[in-house]
């Protein structure tokens, strides 16, 4: 179970998300905007009777925001009893990665450095292991 990862392309980067930190993967319709909210909040959408806050990871890592395409897939996570959804560019697969998580080598962009926790080797490629809960708040904006 611990070795189960969701491999996805988030903010133009392939990353691995630990499966236990994820609630589900769903598709969104048109979200409702939240005026005056922080820039990485793309809006609200309802999934059954719950309201989820849609987060644009592009903004979190310092890229310009991208519009939400209807039917786009999102990664649903629960943080402190609130539901959030991270916009994913592409959901690849849920897979079992036996390799150990390793310390991050090399200097990351500040945005990525904050959300990434480790690296993992998968199919001959190094993936960042990110914690979705780090995408929710934006302390880095104060520095910017």
């Amino acid at each position: 179970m611990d070795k189960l990862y969701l491999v996805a392309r988030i903010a133009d980067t392939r990353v691995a998300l630990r499966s236990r930190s994820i609630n589900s993967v769903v598709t969104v319709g048109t979200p409702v905007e939240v005026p005056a909210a922080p820039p990485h909040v793309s809006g609200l959408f309802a999934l059954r009777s719950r309201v989820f806050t849609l987060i644009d990871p592009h903004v979190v890592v310092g890229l310009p925001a991208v519009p939400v395409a209807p039917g786009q897939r999102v990664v649903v996570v629960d943080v402190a009893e609130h539901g959030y959804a991270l916009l994913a560019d592409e959901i690849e697969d849920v897979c079992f990665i036996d390799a150990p998580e390793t310390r991050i080598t090399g200097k990351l962009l500040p945005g990525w450095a904050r959300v990434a926790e480790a690296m993992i080797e998968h199919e001959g490629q190094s993936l960042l292991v990110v914690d979705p809960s780090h995408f929710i708040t934006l302390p880095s904006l104060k520095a910017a």
Partner: protein
Amino acid sequence: MVVPRILGRTGTAMDDLLNDFLAETAEILAEAGGALVAWEADPSDRAQLDAIFRLVHTIKGSSGFLSLPRVTALSHAAEDALDQVRRGNRAANAALVTGVLAIVDRLSQLCAILGKKGSEPAGDDTDVISVLSVGGDAPEVPAETAEIQLRREDDLTADLQGWRSIRVPLPLLDSVMTGVTDIVLSRNEFARMLRDSGAAPSLIASFDRLSDSIAGMRQSVSQMRMQRIDKLFSPLPRIVRDLAQDLGKKIRFATSGGEVELDREMMENIRDPLIHIVRNAIDHGIEGLNDRVAAGKDVTATIAVSARQSGNQIEIEVRDDGRGLSPDAIVAKAMASRILSAADARTLTPREKLELIFRPGFSTAAKITAISGRGVGMDIVKANVEKIGGIVELRNEEGRGLSVVLRVPMTLTIISGLMVRAAGQYFAIPRGSVREILLETSDTVRVERVGGGELVTVRGEQFPLLRLEAILGRARDHRDDVEDRALVLVRPGQGQSYALSVAAIHDHEELVIKPAAPIIMATGLYAGTTLPDNGRPVLLLDVQGILAAAAIDASEAGRQMDQAVEAEAAAAAERNAAQLLLFRDTNGRVRGVRLSVIERVEEVPSLALFESAGRIQAQIGEDIFPVHAAALPGDRGTLKLLRLHDGQSVLCYPIDAVIDIVRLPELVQPAVAPGLIAGVVLVGGEPVELIDPFWLMEQYSGAAAGSPERRPVCRLADDHDGWGSNFLAPILQNAGYRVVTEGSDEAADVLLCLTEEGGTCVHGDGEVPVIRLRNSVAATNADDDTIYRYDRGALLEALRRRVGGARS
């Protein structure tokens, strides 16, 4: 108080047992605290002692079963001491009660740890246990040994099951609520699809039945979240006792209305404010013993906490008979703490002086005490109560006492919201804080731009004007029609108001409110999210937060002073001018009716309407009212009814939506012939058809339910075969008479004799007019004043002549 975390469905059997134990014990301990204090006040109250004994015994029993040695030892010690008292070997005194209370406290602490860790912590309890046994070492005179209990074992079996209920974990309850909300949402989606697909009416009808049962279920689930307010009151006696003892005051404490029910979440929110108010009453309100004697009051003070329900609100009152608030002392104090200038102080009304206690940084105590001077002031109480849509009211009688009234909505989660549009999307405003809704183009509204800011004058009163788009940092939606722009006069708290300009008013809806994510709440503009029936999330605006974000002074005090004269004149004019309720009729037309004839606007399920005797009727609560409609409406879920009232009878008029309330223009173009439409007036440049309530009432006056006490009484005499009560009575009742039988000794206005031909009516008791009925069509002779019993017209005519008529 202990609030155990209930783990719900996932735990093992042992976890479940432990959770049940913790939940039950928390309840018992709270109850025992109150019972102990009551018993201390009246040690001869045997029933109270038995109740406490049972409670402690229950804890001991269950803890033994779960092998919690410390809990068992503690409850055993308390049980032992209480048993001594029951046997008369020991007298009840303050020391004993304090000792038992100490055990109760220790048990609460243990349970709190148990709830967190799942196991009993190691520790020593001899300190609290020895207090009890010391008292036992010196047995006082065994008084009243004669009262030896015989039914001791029976007492123990008389369990705590005074109420028939089961314990349900909160997460389960919440998941049921979520489930039902899901069902409602998919029902709505399904309903849309059904409509679009042009399904057969029979299919739609059966779907509607399903729909109604879902609505009913949603209602029941909301009720499941309700709890008796008793729970909120249970820790109070203990607090009063301890505090009174610390301060050397004598206080009698009483609660009432504990059966009133309140949403569990709401309860959490008013617990602390309530405790704070009670503490304040004891600390500041109740005088010292000497002062009370000097004031000629009973040495024992009284604090009463009562709850009552009024409509959708719960009123909780904390009343004390202490010194009350002194406006002058408050002003002096406020000036000393620099929250008020001397100049401002002179302009305050007595009421405003009292309300200074709600200002941050205010404390009425001459010296800060350990009890209430902890930086938590009435400002926090007020803020907490207002956060949940409630208000705090003061009823002060200087020298004789103070009442603090908390008025809160019954549920937090479902509120009535006004849906508005701005920048192309919808937002909700809590209906409770909306004072008035006006069209921006209405002629009672004057919008001015002054020094970059905007203000609006409505009937002589000025309000700061905020545009919702500007607050949200959005541009106006180009599709919005300027004609639709509306002003919502918002009153976020007492003494504050402003006008919020929105692109359009949508409608009213009952909304299920959920907190939004912290990053969204942090904007300060939103109070939560809600999911209306269309399944698209809507943000609930925080009307207080908007004020803070706009950084404007919205207090009403200043502007009323400048405008006092003008406002008074405008108000006087307003009182004279009739108001017009604008609404959209079921046929889509905009119509108006004088506001004064509207009793209220009802929203009823369409099933409440039925057809009977060729007329459409509506069942509202226990009553049935005629409805002005040619046919039953198709199913529309619910529909709105205007309730017209002419002082005697009620008529319902179905409408599509309420639009606005405006001043009735003086110029009315009257209609040619009398009918539903009395004439046409221009409102905001648009023609509006004016409903004629006179004509409407006239149409339905026969069927309208009159008030019962005005009905003349008609007594049936000689009704041997029951024809009178079976055939005649219904007709008479329809015509507005009340029918009593012969046996009744009620004074009758008219007597109806059903005597056979030739017989004489022996019931003529002098004053009362008599009408005799005959069985044959033809009269026997010219002098015959009897009436053929099936001649309805003649009979009613005769009745009208005799009694002056049921109605003119």
